[in-house]
């Protein structure tokens, strides 16, 4: 029943979108609520996992999909509520937006590789349509998005063919296949996450395309989460854990984490900075998946279970906080952080914004902090193991992760302070106070109910055959049973935190002193050497010292052109790829002029729609 309800309900928003965009978003939020309710009931054991099949398509829902359904449902709900206030949207965007959500949910509940690749392709196509609709025909960011989407699908197709070759079926069953085939599939998923050096997949369409903000939320908060789910699913199906894959994932992940957060610091675009942060978070989750494989290989069942919970918690914290972050970018038409008028983010909405920024900084007691803590704990517990090379890599990855977490604090301090700064000379865009005030508390509630979430997510571990139930929650002195999150160690536990009590300890003195001392505060001007303030510190200057220190990373160039002085940084991977792309473009322009002459955009739409339909046809004539 559950699957039928989900698949059926998801048809409503796109159909409604033909009539009205508002109705479509309302329908989307209701459907999201339904999905949240259904996934929770599966996790809590009210409904048992089930599966259905329709022709070549087959669907199933289990604890792992339910956990991610819950996350995507939350993002979908918050994003749809935001879309109601969002002015820069229309029926076509509402239509493609609804179908993007459909495709993502489809990936989460698909139970054979054909279904998965179909919905995966749907994600790329509808995402492309959502960003390409507004862009001019020459805008290439949507093409990049589509190109890498297709590249990802290509990798998946190759890998799934290999799996079919080994297992003889396209159904997702437990298997023991060649690690290279598994790795090819993982690369396909990683492309979608924008893992370094392919980070432009993530930031380019969001920052430079004219992607609508609700679409950006889907790309950044939801699609990457779906990619994480798919990687986790594949790792789960592989019955023999290959430690080499684990180490590779761990190194790629932690490297991405550090580099992406370094790039985030130097970013001056209000959408690019959170997009880099998404890469950083994906890197963290990838590291955790790598740790899962390593610990499964060495039979550290407790720690493996801990990492699975960590991935889910991390994914949830990231999805919620990132949604809030992207909502905040709509405060101003201008996307240059230096020119944003964030004057309307005041009072409670500012608090909500701040909370999500702190969560993305990875600070305890908020969700992101719990995830960050679980990541570092897993890394350092793994490093205490007996295998020297594993220990050394884990320590290395751990230091990269810790450094990256530190850099993200700089990035989000900058983001929060400059985004909520009032500048009268520029005008604001949408009124985002309401949507911020709904999304922000979700982040803080997640911190408070973290123990409950962990309890709810614990059944996910049961999906992984070799791992039984593990004990993550514990008690210590006056902290009652269940409010202490512990990490497994040699003697009981390795480390512990209690986010609920942390929040209480922080908020109670604050609230009490706030109410006791109301009206007694004294406001004074800042001391600017005795003069009124005429100049403003710029966000560029805020991170420029890091640009100068990390010249080797950013390839900082100080330029003086016609007496105007500027300083530029380069995403070196992007520079290389764009050079290759320009060579390729020259070649294809030559090719196009010789053999084809028509509207390139129409041609693109034709190509992808043809591809989509041929895939569907393929399913029925297989």
């Amino acid at each position, binding site marked *: 029943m559950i699957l039928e309800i989900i698949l059926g309900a998801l048809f409503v928003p796109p159909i409604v979108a033909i009539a009205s965009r508002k109705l479509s978003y309302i329908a989307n939020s209701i459907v999201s609520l339904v999905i949240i309710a259904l996934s929770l009931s599966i996790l809590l054991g009210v409904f048992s996992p089930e599966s259905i099949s329709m022709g070549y398509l087959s669907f199933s829902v289990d604890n792992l999909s339910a956990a991610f359904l819950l996350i995507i449902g939350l993002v979908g709900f918050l994003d749809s509520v935001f879309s109601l206030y969002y002015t820069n949207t229309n029926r076509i965007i509402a239509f493609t937006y609804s179908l993007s959500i459909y495709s993502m949910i489809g990936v989460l509940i698909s139970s054979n590789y054909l279904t998965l690749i179909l919905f995966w392709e749907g994600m790329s196509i509808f995402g492309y349509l959502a960003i390409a609709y507004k862009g001019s025909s020459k805008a290439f960011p949507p093409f990049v998005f589509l190109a890498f989407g297709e590249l990802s699908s290509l990798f998946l197709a190759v890998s799934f063919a290999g799996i079919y070759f080994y297992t003889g079926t396209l159904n997702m069953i437990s298997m023991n296949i060649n690690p290279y085939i598994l790795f090819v599939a993982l690369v396909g998923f990683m492309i979608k996450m924008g893992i370094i050096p392919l980070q432009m997949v993530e930031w380019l369409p969001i920052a430079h395309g004219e992607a609508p903000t609700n679409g950006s939320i889907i790309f950044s908060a939801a699609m990457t989460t779906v990619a994480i789910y798919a990687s986790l699913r594949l790792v789960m199906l592989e019955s023999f854990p290959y430690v080499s894959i684990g180490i590779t994932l761990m190194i790629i992940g932690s490297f991405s984490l550090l580099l992406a957060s370094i790039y985030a610091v130097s970013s001056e675009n209000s959408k690019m900075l959170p997009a880099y942060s998404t890469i950083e978070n994906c890197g963290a989750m990838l590291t955790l998946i790598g740790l899962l494989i390593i610990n499964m290989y060495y039979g550290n069942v407790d720690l493996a279970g801990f990492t699975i919970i960590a991935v889910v918690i991390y994914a949830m914290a990231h999805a919620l906080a990132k949604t809030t972050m992207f909502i905040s970018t709509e405060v101003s038409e201008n996307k240059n952080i230096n020119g944003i008028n964030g004057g309307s983010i005041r009072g409670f909405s500012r608090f909500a914004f701040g909370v999500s920024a702190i969560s993305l900084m990875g600070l305890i007691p908020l969700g992101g902090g719990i995830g960050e803590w679980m990541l570092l704990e897993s890394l350092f517990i793994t490093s205490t193991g007996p295998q020297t090379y594993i220990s050394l890599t884990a320590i290395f990855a751990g230091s990269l992760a810790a450094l990256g977490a530190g850099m993200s604090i700089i990035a989000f301090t900058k983001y929060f302070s400059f985004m909520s700064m009032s500048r009268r000379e520029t005008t604001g865009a949408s009124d985002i106070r309401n949507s911020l005030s709904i999304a922000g508390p979700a982040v803080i509630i997640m911190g408070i109910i973290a123990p409950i979430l962990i309890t709810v997510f614990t059944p996910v571990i049961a999906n992984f055959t070799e791992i039984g139930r593990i004990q993550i929650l514990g008690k210590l002195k006056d902290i009652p049973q269940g409010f202490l999150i512990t990490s497994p160690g040699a003697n009981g536990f390795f480390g512990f935190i209690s986010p609920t009590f942390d929040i209480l300890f922080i908020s109670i003195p604050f609230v009490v002193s706030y109410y006791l001392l109301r009206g007694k505060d*004294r406001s*004074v*001007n800042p*001391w600017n*050497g*005795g*003069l009124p303030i005429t100049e403003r510190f710029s966000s560029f200057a805020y991170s420029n010292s890091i640009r100068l220190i990390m010249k080797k990373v950013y390839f900082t160039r100080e330029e003086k052109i016609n007496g105007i002085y500027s300083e530029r940084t380069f995403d070196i991977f992007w520079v290389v790829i764009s050079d290759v792309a320009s060579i390729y473009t020259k070649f294809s322009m030559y090719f196009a002029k010789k053999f084809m002459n028509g509207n390139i955009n129409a041609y693109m739409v034709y190509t992808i729609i043809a591809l989509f339909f041929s895939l569907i046809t393929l399913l029925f004539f297989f």
Partner: protein
Amino acid sequence: MSRWILRGLKKGIITSRFPKNEPETISPWSTLPVYMKNSYKGCPTDAIHNNEVDLRRCISCGRCSSSFSPSLNVNNSIILRSERYLKKSLKIYVLDAGSCGACNTELHALSNPFYDMNRLGIFFVNTPKQADALFVIGVLSEQMKRVVKEAYDIMAEPKLVFAMGACPASGNILGSSLSGILDADVIIGGCPPDPFVILNAIMNARGDVS
């Protein structure tokens, strides 16, 4: 590193025992002149009336040396208001409103090992927000008026204003005084005041010395 320590040990303690003991030295023409003999007319700052010298006006020029001689008295200040709460610790923000540079260096000298103001709980701070006392030095130039006002406004209570030297007290021979902009709580005489005079005034202003 060790050579610095050795050098420090070799020098011994040079810090003054003031205010427990009398000051070791004092610059004669930084203290208030007292009447000796004859009468003197033509004081350039009109500081002498009835053979009494007004410390607000006296600039220690020594032109009156025929009938006046330096008192060598360290107590060369007027305390209009004292603040006992600042007895243990006093954070000073120095505001140069148009000085010649001598007062700046005399204040700087307070931190040298001879005077070592830190032993008395006196410190310099870099912003008036952290300051308990505002030291205004120099004649008040037109552009510094709003700076002085602004600095005083953002200081937290309790706060003291020191008019240091003849310039802010009376305008010296060079410009205008502090009056009309701020009311000084403590006026320190001298041009420039001797460091011991400054220390003495600070101690008095916080009620340390009777």
